[in-house]
């Protein structure tokens, strides 16, 4: 295995009756920026703490690099963690905080046997880490005299100073304001590129996951749902949960029936119908499914003559599903049309160049055939 990857093998962690992490199998490759994403309580933070050694697994094995660390103490795992609250020592200066991982631990220098660093070596490391994060002017200050963004940098500097093989980050941006968060995302990606080390990053914010991850792992209720690049996960979600968790506004989901007419696959929703692209794997004909379409893959047209409700099958080759605009959300660069369709709500995302349509107007919804996804009605697993 690689030098600093992380491998979960059937890792389980319980807290009393609750199973926080359930038989997790996950491989984080060396040098990867892996984001663990999920709603609160999904087990992502517990998974991170298991890597750190702050929790011990009830079952399974955990490897860092080629070492089995399942029973190795936190300090000997060669990992560093950035906490959500940063966990800076308030009574120490910035320099003291950054230095602290070097004081008691043995640290490897240029790949040699780990050893304790001399005071001069420690100072050099602190200066270097502070330089990387632009903290050189602040070394003498206490955390109370720093801004939120500066504290976050100190926490990062404390993490990089011992040059660990794995960086762990637990929602490190959640205490920053929106503007600073966007800026720090870019800096973290840049830091990852410069350090070329494994990052494992926990967040519930899909934007952070999408923008920073090389791969992301989505968890729900302690179970891994899907692992993949942000694009894979967005375009081919493994199940309805992932489909609706990733993307904003979330993917539309409607009850429907899979049909094939004259060799042309389509899905019937209420009295309308959306054609599907040919060639993809198909479920059994007549099967009840949940239809998923992202808002940007829907378009509206006027419900033209002969295309109206009740004509059903005669809706033309491009098909379409009729509905009524219920609300318009104008966001400047785009707008979201919320439509009522057969008792379901469907959101259409479109550019805001032309005048906003009036709520109450009847419309026909068209979908890009290759972008319509089908999920199992009961399990939510992806069908095509």
């Amino acid at each position, binding site marked *: 295995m690689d030098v600093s990857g992380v491998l979960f093998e059937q890792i389980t962690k319980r807290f009393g009756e609750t199973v926080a992490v359930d038989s997790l199998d996950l491989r984080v490759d060396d040098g990867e920026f892996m984001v663990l994403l999920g709603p609160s309580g999904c087990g992502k933070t517990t998974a991170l703490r298991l890597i*750190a*050694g*702050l929790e011990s697994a009830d079952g399974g094995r955990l490897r860092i690099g080629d070492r089995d660390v399942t029973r190795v103490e*936190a*300090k000997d795992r060669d*990992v*560093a*963690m950035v*906490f*959500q*609250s940063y*966990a800076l*020592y*308030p*009574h120490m200066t910035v320099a003291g905080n950054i230095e*602290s*991982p070097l*004081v*008691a*631990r043995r640290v490897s220098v240029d790949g040699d046997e780990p050893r304790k660093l001399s005071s001069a070596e420690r100072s050099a490391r602190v200066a270097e880490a502070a330089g990387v994060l632009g903290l050189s002017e602040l070394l003498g200050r*206490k*955390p*109370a005299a720093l801004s939120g963004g500066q504290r976050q940098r100190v926490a990062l500097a404390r993490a990089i100073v011992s040059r660990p093989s794995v960086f762990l980050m637990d929602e490190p941006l959640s205490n920053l304001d929106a503007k600073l968060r966007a800026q720090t995302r870019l800096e973290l990606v840049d830091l990852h590129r410069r350090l070329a080390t494994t990052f494992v990053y926990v967040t519930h914010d899909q934007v952070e996951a999408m923008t920073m991850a090389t791969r992301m792992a989505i968890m729900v209720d302690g179970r891994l749902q899907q692992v993949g690049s942000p694009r894979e996960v967005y375009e081919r979600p493994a199940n309805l949960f992932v489909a609706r968790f990733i993307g904003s506004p979330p993917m539309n989901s409607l009850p429907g029936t899979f049909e094939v007419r004259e060799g042309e696959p389509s899905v019937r929703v209420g009295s309308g119908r959306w054609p599907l692209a040919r060639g993809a794997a198909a479920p059994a004909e007549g099967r009840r499914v949940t239809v998923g379409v992202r808002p940007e893959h829907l378009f509206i047209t006027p419900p033209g003559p002969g295309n109206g409700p009740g004509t059903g099958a005669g809706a033309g080759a491009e098909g379409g599903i009729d509905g009524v605009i219920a609300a318009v959300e104008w966001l400047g660069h785009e707008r979201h049309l919320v439509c009522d369709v057969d008792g379901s709500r469907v959101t259409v995302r479109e550019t805001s160049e032309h005048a906003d349509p009036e709520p109450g107007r009847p419309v026909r919804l068209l979908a890009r055939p290759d972008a319509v996804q089908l999920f199992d009605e009961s399990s939510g697993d992806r069908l095509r």
Partner: protein
Amino acid sequence: MSGRRIRERGLAAVLLLPSALIFAAFFFYPLYRLVYLGLHQQNRFGTAERWVGWSQFSDVLTGDDFRDGLSHTVVYVLLTVPAGLVLGVLLAVAAHRRLRGIRVFQTIFGSTVASSVAVASVVFLVLVNPQIGYFRDIGFLSLSDPDTALRGVALSSIWQNLGLTFIIVLAGLQAVPDELYEAAVLDGFGPVRRFWRVTLPLISPTLLFLVVVLVIFGFQAFAQVEILTAGGPAGSTETLVFKIFRNQQPATVGVGAVMAIGLFVITVVVTLVQFALLERRVHYGS
């Protein structure tokens, strides 16, 4: 002055009045009476008094009685405060963990806060009773030996104050975020170094508060002395407050008043010095 200002002044005076009255009745007037009594001498029946001036202050404050009382009090403070603080911190650190049933121990350790000095002293009196006491053979606690009696009194006070110290230190420990300890674990610090590097600095405001409070408690020690030794044997446990109490007869009330003023000034000075010395080493959270 504008009408509005006058109204505001009036409102301020009305709002200040209740606390001003309480301070006047229970602090300023008694202080004035102490000074007055200290400047006068009364006959044996308290029926007549004559002005003796500041000479009574200099006589009493430089006299053997005051010096003995002060030295007993200082020794008593030195015996009770450091030991009580260390024990309280040890107990609190021991009880500050997530264990099933730990609250039972927390309640037991904190329970002495619910007992009065009198109860604690009577319990201790039974423990050191020369005939039946559990500690009757422990010579260095004996209340009947002038060399050891103050230690015995101090021990009972350490026990009595332990509940308060424990509860306040425990509250201080619980205010330290878990993530700081976890960060320290990842930084490779063992339990002992975590205590010195993280815990102690972060509970230092709590400890400063306790030092001040316990020192003042020590300077005010009276009931435990009265119950355990009544100042004896041979006056070896007469603290300042005890001596003030002894000087409440009309003939010596002036002496007692001067001692009380002396104790007040000493307590204020000691507290200010503590703040000045310890403040610099105390970290107040961000």
